[in-house]
């Protein structure tokens, strides 16, 4: 609050002044650049490609047999039987399966890269419980060999998040999984930013140990509420500035605050919440917190107890991103059930997502989803592969605000495609070819399409 009191006073003064001097000249309008580190991603060399005779899981809940997928100019052009296209590179995918490119909504690749060395530990700005001012993209090491491994597992899009030490960890960024020397070269064009928040044990442990707020869960809630109250004031100040300026006045712009810019971005609906939050009672409070301050409470990550409040999540439009089976490392991860994702998914208007949070399991999100499907089916569910695939494609895209661009094989969407050697929900399944925006970025049988990090070059 104190931070921008002076600027409020300034604003008040300038309003008073403009009241007297009707003909005053307006200063140049202060406009905040919302995209100062823009994407420079370019689609890799591209050919019209026709994949023939595959089993296709579209990501929209359908399964098609002996189907062809046609990709032109980086988009899905058509899916159907007996397609042909002049000049297209044809791939015989008889016996193989095709899915949308796999999306991981929770990754720390690049910010906690391999090798895990001190100099690369850039994922958790553990210096204050609110670090909304930090952006994960500023920590990304594009040479993390983990990106290549993830690509071999069919990952075409991934959100890189800051860690969970803080109540507000900072902004996350969504990347195309293509090799590049720069973060900007990987950045998903037009993807909304995410804001990482964290409930529960981590913030209270980290800051409690330093005897600062939060040291309890009620301290966590107080920390969020104080920050949102401040952000609300900040937003109001800018809106007043914009309104006054539009009215021909010459107001002084509020003092720029990088931390509050991010929170305001959430309140404006530009930035999506990605909330590390395991427990049912905490998720329910975070939903109310969003209502209290007029923002959508977004996606709950590591939502171990989502199954306890599946209805509440669906009613409030929250996605839950979950593991199939991780548990027991913390008290808040004690109540895991294998069917968590399936229980959440079973509710109407739900958004169940399987995520990794791991440089290792990101390589096998197909198997992670498969584990859920089979365990659930052993216990009364009837989940087909065409539904299970949505947990790591379409629903993940929805969580990232990218449902109109990727996550399903539909006409006009980005041609993010994986060809699997068999049913992707087999332990023996392997991605054979991976396409991002219609361009081949990985081929299991062609070294030409197997990228290698600078770091791994020349090591013996």
């Amino acid at each position: 609050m104190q931070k921008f009191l002076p600027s409020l006073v300034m604003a008040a003064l300038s309003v008073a002044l403009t009241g007297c001097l009707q003909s005053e000249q307006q200063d140049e309008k202060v406009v905040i650049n919302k995209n100062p580190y823009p994407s420079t991603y370019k689609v890799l060399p591209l050919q019209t490609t026709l994949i023939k005779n595959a089993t296709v899981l579209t990501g929209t809940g359908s399964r098609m047999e002996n189907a062809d997928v046609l990709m032109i100019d980086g988009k899905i052009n058509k899916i159907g039987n007996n397609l042909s296209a002049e000049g297209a590179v044809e791939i015989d995918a008889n016996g193989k399966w095709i899915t949308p490119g796999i999306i991981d909504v929770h990754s720390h690749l690049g910010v906690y890269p391999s090798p895990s060395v001190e100099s690369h530990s850039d994922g958790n700005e553990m210096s204050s419980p609110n670090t909304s001012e930090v952006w994960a993209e500023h920590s990304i090491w594009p040479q993390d060999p983990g990106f290549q491994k993830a690509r071999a597992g069919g990952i075409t899009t991934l959100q890189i998040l800051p860690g969970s030490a803080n109540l507000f960890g900072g902004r996350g960024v969504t990347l195309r999984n293509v090799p590049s020397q720069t973060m900007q070269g990987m950045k998903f064009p037009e993807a909304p930013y995410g804001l990482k928040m964290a409930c529960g044990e981590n913030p209270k442990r980290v800051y409690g140990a330093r005897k600062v707020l939060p040291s309890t869960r009620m301290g966590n809630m107080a920390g969020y509420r104080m920050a949102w109250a401040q952000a609300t004031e900040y937003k109001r100040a800018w809106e007043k500035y914009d309104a006054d300026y539009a009215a021909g006045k010459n107001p002084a712009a509020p003092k720029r605050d990088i931390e509050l810019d991010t929170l305001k971005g959430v309140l404006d609906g530009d930035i999506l919440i990605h909330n590390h939050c395991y427990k049912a009672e905490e998720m329910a409070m975070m939903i109310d917190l969003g209502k209290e301050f007029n923002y959508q409470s977004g996606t709950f990550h590591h939502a171990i107890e989502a199954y306890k409040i599946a209805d509440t999540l669906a009613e409030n439009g929250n996605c839950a991103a979950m593991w199939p089976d991780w548990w027991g490392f913390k008290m808040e991860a004690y109540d895991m059930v294998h069917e968590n994702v399936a229980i959440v998914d079973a509710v109407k208007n739900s958004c169940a997502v399987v995520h990794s949070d791991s440089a290792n399991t990101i390589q096998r999100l197909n198997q992670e989803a498969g584990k859920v499907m089979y365990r659930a089916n052993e216990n009364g569910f009837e989940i087909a592969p065409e539904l299970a695939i949505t947990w790591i494609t379409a629903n993940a895209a929805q969580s990232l605000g990218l449902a109109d661009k990727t996550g399903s094989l539909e006409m006009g969407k980005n041609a993010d495609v994986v060809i699997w050697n068999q049913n992707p929900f087999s332990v023996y399944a392997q991605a054979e070819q991976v396409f991002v925006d219609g361009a081949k970025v990985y081929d299991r049988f062609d070294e030409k399409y197997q990228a290698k990090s600078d770091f791994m070059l020349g090591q013996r």
Partner: protein
Amino acid sequence: MKQLTLFKSSLIALALASSSASFAQSFAITHATVHTVTEQGVLENATVVVENGKVIAINPETINADTIIDATGKILTPGLIGSMNQLGLVEVSAVSRSRDAKDKKANITFDASLAFNPRSTVIPYSRKGGITSNVVAPRGGDDMFKGQTFVADLSGEFDSVRSNNNSVVIDLGAKSKGSRALSLQNLQFKLEDAVKALAKAKQKTKNTKDQKEAKEPSREAQVINALLAGEKALVAYADRATDLLALLKIKEQFSLDLVLVGAADAVLIADKIAAANVPVVMAALDNLPGSFDSLHASLENAAKLTQAGVSVALTLNGDTHNLYQLRFHVGNAIANGLSRDVALASVTANVAKAFNLDSGTIAIGKTADLVLWSADPFELSTKVSQMWIDGKEYSTQSRQDALRERYTTPSDMPKAYIK
């Protein structure tokens, strides 16, 4: 009244059905595809007879058993053996008072089996993965020796610990502070000193018959002596090829029984490891260059080491709560080149061999740790149909199932009333 009785008896029936064990004296599993993991290989449509906790017959001419279990279409394997985790020593990793695998002051004598909790919820959960026994490795403290391994079955019974103080765990390789050289040097010196002390003691007893009994060596020294006598294996965490080579040299010099754990870069010296007949306990899915010690980690390493003649045992590298996933790791190793025969051995017979256990195969006279699978044990869609530990049947139901049932059972009352 009648209703009440009915209710009571149904409760009892329920309790019986959900009780973890059934007490048949002898039983025969018939019509199964039996993977013996012995020279007998895979037996189709086979019968295995168990009595008093042991396998007493395979494909007998006449079946003589209290219970017959028709396993048509199913696969019988030895129970899988976990290793190098802290099962029973940790309930919740971040709850300090539920952890017993570490102690700052722990040394080579550290016997964590005293803290083993058979009632840990991780144990029935791990049975979902067909794990019937497990080599628990303590994580020690400041000392490079982390303590000694013990073996526990996954019955959840109070007598689960099968043996303790089995092998000595040492942690070598990259150090956050200091040099890896010092640990290797210390190991070398300790062994050399022990050899000298033993020779000296021998000399003493020979020369001075009338002297009082030779002073008993310290407890630490006794463990080192057991290593030198080959009574205990040295189980060494190390990744970089230079560390592995140094260990092979030490093994040769002191005729140690050596087991390598982790061994991310073992592929660089696979032929040497094979020639030294040293087993490697490794995680099949570790394929990232996590450090400068593990630049050659790869999904294909299990297959490559095996092809070079190394006996490979698969583990989850300390990941206790996910032990149940072991079979999926094996499946991935197969997808990356490991042959199917070796794959099953890597979580049964090879683990038993590396840690000197009397399990891991289906053979007459062996402990009846058995798992009957609905299909291919390594496939995601497969589940454990039935399993036996020491010849006794155990359920795979765990706390997780109780939670699922509670939250998928419709009720007008709060969930807390559903039990």
